[in-house]
């Protein structure tokens, strides 16, 4: 299992991680599943999708704060 590069929005911070699946990836990064969407080539991925080192993956945080 090699190292893959992921981009975390909105700041486009780049992280390198080892992960077999999308669910592993979030666990590895310490991110809540219900607080993020994982996107590859414009497609949202479910937790069970297997990832390859060459995949370009983006993570969208979905939680907004402040009183509304």
């Amino acid at each position, binding site marked *: 299992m090699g190292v893959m590069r992921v981009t975390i929005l909105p700041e486009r911070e780049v992280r390198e991680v080892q992960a077999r699946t999308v669910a592993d990836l979030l666990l590895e990064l310490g991110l809540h599943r*219900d607080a993020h969407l994982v996107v590859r080539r414009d497609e*949202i991925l*479910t937790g069970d999708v297997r990832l390859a080192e060459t995949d370009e993956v983006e993570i969208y945080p979905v*939680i907004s*704060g402040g009183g*509304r």
Partner: protein
Amino acid sequence: MRCHTCARPANVEIRRSRIAFCAGCYPHWFRARVQERIDHDRMFRRDERVLVAVSGGKDSLALWHALTRLGYRADGVYIRLGIGGYSRRSQEKCERFAEWHGLMLHQVDLEGSEGFVVPDLREARSGKPCAACGTVKRYHFNRVAAELGYDVVATGHNLDDEAATLFGNLVHWNIDYLGRQGPVLESTHPGLVRKVKPLYRLSERETAAYALIERIDYILEECPMAKGAKSLAYKAMLNSLEEQQPGAKYGFLVGFLKQGRAALPGTGFEPAAELRACARCGQPTTAEVCAYCRMADRGRRRRERARPPAGVDPT
């Protein structure tokens, strides 16, 4: 994972229901959930005019999009809060959305028409203007709706927002707020328009997925004042729980609305007999001058003090 509707590879999973949808089927599922809530909770009818309160964020734009696609007559209202570049960029998102979909967007310009901006309302203790900002929004959403004859104001509050608010109200035992928290706030006075939250059973992740799939161009950045907000801490706690127990957030909120709320004294929907017109602005209030007008005075005074002395001002 396969799509619950068409069996193609899925994109969005709904862990609490153990189902998933592909990008093609997901928006239909999402809009059906919105429709179900509008009907079941009697939020509004097809012949009523809806005013959607938009911020440029994913929730309010997803709501406006879904209502329009469901065939409702829904216009938007945006308040220019004057929070620097964040406000400019979010205003642009709302304007572009309205233009692209051929929708009517009303705007309130705080600085131009009221003489203050939200950062003028910072509290000395916390340094945050959020409580006052909430008052500003509620006031103007209601005022615009009442003046222009809308039947209902719809906001984009989602499951995570509502569960976090409930959690906060429980942590502090705000019994008064608890009794009033819900997806429909009925009108108790002719000058108070009904408020509804059609997304209240859809999670924040689900509204974000809808916005992405429908290619809604929303503002990803957060309001700079949101940093360190209590609601974010509550949301993170609830999402930790959700990780272990999918459906916990939903059960927490919906269980409260179905059972917990009934056990509380008063739902706050009794006709508010003691309301009268604010001496300054005419909006319904229990005081001589309404809370908004008093707050606006504070904002204007702050702004006045911050302004450079006459003669230095280049204008």
